[in-house]
């Protein structure tokens, strides 16, 4: 009981503490591929400390919603991230929300951030919110279709059960899973505002989405939003790792040795994921905003195709 509680606590802290490192790693990989030296992988921590130490300046007409939103965004992203199994499948509170709830919690965070973008009444905030909602209107159903595919194969929408099925059961090679993986990578790119969809490294560009929404934020509020963005990136990579490569993850009742192996494996998977993301981002160009719907529509259709295949292949 106490061990289970501790494991849950370790998971929550681990994912929170390590997520800026992942962001730093991706930036470093991108910098090296562009033949720059790039800042240290620990730069995101320094940025957070700097932002936290600064005074926050908010616009004269900002409402309470503008001040609450960063904390809400951070908290719901953190809770969603804590529900994704990292080193062990059976965590104490993993049953309190399934994959659909995780998707919806991220939706709540986005809802709050989009509203905050409109609060000051600037054109940049509006353009960011409007485009973010356009992207999410396709990315969210695509995500749910992926959830459907995975859930139909594992017979559960519970991430820990899915991970155990993938780990132990003889799932074998399945077309639907492959389609779901491709769709999930596309959705993860879009949801995290990575390169083909949005550029996390840009300011002052008419094509920016996420950065336009948070343009008015500064100081501790911005720190919360940056940390939430790192958490979200970690969440998606951890989710892909948990569903498609659960190798090494501890299952069954919690014990120290399997959990330690699981943690090591997880760290390795996150590092590989970060490097792959950096490589992918360097090798493609950002697309025009109105090509994004086609890109995401492909993810939605792949997801739906996967689900249809599963329905059709059952009970024949």
């Amino acid at each position, binding site marked *: 009981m106490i061990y289970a509680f501790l494991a849950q606590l370790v998971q929550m802290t681990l994912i929170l503490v390590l997520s800026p490192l992942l962001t730093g790693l991706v930036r470093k990989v991108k910098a090296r591929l562009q033949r720059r030296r790039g800042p240290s992988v620990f730069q995101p921590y320094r940025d957070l400390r700097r932002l936290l130490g*600064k*005074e*926050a*300046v*908010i*616009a004269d*007409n900002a*409402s309470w*919603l503008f*001040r609450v939103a960063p*904390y*809400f965004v951070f908290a719901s992203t*953190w*809770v969603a991230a804590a529900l994704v199994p990292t080193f062990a499948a059976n965590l104490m*509170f993993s049953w*309190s929300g*399934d994959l*659909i*709830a995780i998707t*919806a*919690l991220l*939706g709540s965070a*986005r*809802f709050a951030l*989009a*509203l905050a973008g*409109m*609060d*000051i*009444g*600037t054109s*940049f905030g*509006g353009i960011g*919110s*409007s485009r973010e*909602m*356009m992207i*999410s*209107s*396709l*990315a*969210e*159903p695509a995500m749910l*279709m992926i959830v*459907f595919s995975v*859930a139909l194969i594992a017979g*559960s*929408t519970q991430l820990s*059960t899915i991970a155990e099925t993938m780990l132990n059961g003889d799932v074998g090679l399945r077309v639907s899973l492959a389609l779901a993986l491709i769709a999930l990578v596309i959705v993860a790119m879009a949801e995290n505002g990575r390169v083909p969809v949005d550029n996390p490294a840009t300011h002052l560009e008419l094509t920016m989405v996420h950065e336009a929404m948070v343009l008015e934020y500064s*100081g*501790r509020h911005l*720190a*919360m939003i940056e940390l939430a963005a790192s958490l979200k990136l970690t969440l998606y990579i951890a989710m892909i790792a948990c569903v498609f490569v659960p190798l090494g993850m501890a299952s069954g009742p919690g014990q120290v040795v399997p959990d330690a192996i699981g943690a090591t494996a997880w760290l390795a998977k996150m590092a590989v994921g970060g490097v792959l993301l950096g490589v992918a981002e360097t090798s493609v160009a950002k697309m025009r*905003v109105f090509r994004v719907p086609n890109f995401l529509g492909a993810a*939605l259709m792949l*997801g*739906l195709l996967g689900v*249809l295949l*599963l*329905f059709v292949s059952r009970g024949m």
Partner: protein
Amino acid sequence: MTGAIWSIPALFVLAIVGTVTAKTPAGRIVIYGGSLLLAAGLLIAGFDALTGPVQHLRLPLGLPWIGTNLRLDALSGFFLVILGLGGGGASLFALGYGRHEHHPERVLPFFPAFLAGMATVLVADDAFTFLFGWELMSLTSWALVMAHDKEPGNARAGFVYLIMATFSGLALLLAFGMLAGPLGGYAFDSMRAAHPATGTAAIILIVALIGAGSKAGLVPLHVWLPLAHPAAPSHVSALMSGVMTKIAVYGFIRIVFDLLGPNQWWAGTAVLVLGGITAVLGVLHALMERDIKRLLAYSTVENIGIVFIGLGLALAFRATGFQAGAALALTAALFHALNHTVFKSLLFFGAGAVLNATGERDMETMGGLIHRMPRTSFAFLAGCVAIAGLPPLNGFASEWLTLQAILVHPEMSEWGLKLMIPVDGAALALAAALAGACFVRAFGIVFLGRPRTDAAAHARETDPWSIAAMMGFAALCLLAGIFPGVVIDAIAPVARGLTGARMPVQLGDAWMTIAPVEASRSSYNGLLVFGFVTASILLTVAVVHRLSRGVRRGPAWDCGFPDPTTASQYSAASFAQPLRRVFATVVFQASDTVVMPPPGDNRAASIVRRIRDPIWDTVYAPLGRGVGWIADRANKLQFLTIRRYLGFVFGALVVLLMALTLWQ
């Protein structure tokens, strides 16, 4: 039974009192206060019926050979709870809101009668009483829609509504006639006992779907809804959208699940197709709309689509003998119906408060109201989050259940279901995501940003009664969201009565988790999620505030070029532009035409947006033209001599007799 049975005649009496006292200052207090109490009576009667045994009552009223049969079972009880909640909330809101009414005599008498009509439908146990209540509900709500008949568009709204209401009543009349059979057993008991042949049952099902669906706002029969609901005073809009559409859902469930008996699997497919189309089309319309009340009305269409997706799944599972799944899907549909009553009423109250404060329904004239109307905006925000299906509020709980019902049983042997169920899953996911965008837009444009007009800049917070109604519903959104198990268990008797099974008991689980099938398949705990998020927020705020240096106010940054004109903000139209370009160019043939005058010409540049409603263009417009064409031709018949009229009568008689001879 007693609570319900006394509340209904008391509502009629209140309606009569309303005609007398409408113009006096106390009229509003008497009518709405009385309605509030009687709605509470209906609510209590509903709770009684949900848990208690089935009750019957026969009154010597109405048609002599049928009488008035009343019956209160779990299904009626559940919908009486919806009616009591929605009606009570609307009455409470109207205690304050009603003071702005210029012609109270056009609203006050009809309001209790409208409630009475809906309650009559719910307790009716024969076709006559049912249709009496149904038509009363239609006519009184039509009168309420026409309360502000001088406003542009309202006359047309009333006309279209009257036509569609008549059509819906006729369809139900036909359905009941076929259920009653040649012997004319109009009591519901004899309809339950008779099992119509497969072909007849199919026709009854389709006719009932048309009749109830057109009242509920099912595409393609929804066209009246976005016209009529916003035209009424806001508390009546809340009642029409929040409650009357549910009475229509009740009518469908009563006829198809209860009276008709077992169904074929294709019925489920048909309902699934309509439900999926309704959900997506409704929310797309809502996204394009700039009138806040019409936006809410279109969103009602969407939510009715979600309810019908649940009902279609229940029909499909019931037909294939998978009763536990049918119970799950039906529970999800009923849960969503209840949730929709709560948050849609709340949103219409908020829209009414805004309408009073600014005098406008057009979102493009609003903005910044969160500063002027803090309480209204808080409650409206809760409604927006709930209707967008986001945790931890109630909209998510019921949509989650519907998604679980889609996933529960992939082993179908019928191809129609195999294809339709996953496609409806995608439609539901799309509708939920678009609803999120729709309500970010609604809240963001109306309440956030800078005021776009003077009216919005000088708006004032609404009265305490209205605030109380809105806050109460906001609290219900949260409660139903974090304790969904309570609602699911309350629906269990309804599900057992109609599907023969029920969902597993939820309240026994630790920490109030809900697990629709079993915990290893899927579980959700609204309470814990809410607790975790709240605790994380408090923890973070505590830590961060210790580390950092406080907040300073300054001018907006806006990348260094803040524009003082409020017109430079994103508007409702510009917010929807990306979505219009992605979705509406296909569905609504949306097009933007920019007229840019050449240099030297000092006319203003303009942009014209065009949106076509495919359903109106392909179904209703040709139908209207056809009726007009026939009416023009038939017009000549008005000016004939008496000889020729008698000739027509004779000719008709001969034709009918010939037909009868040939028939036999």
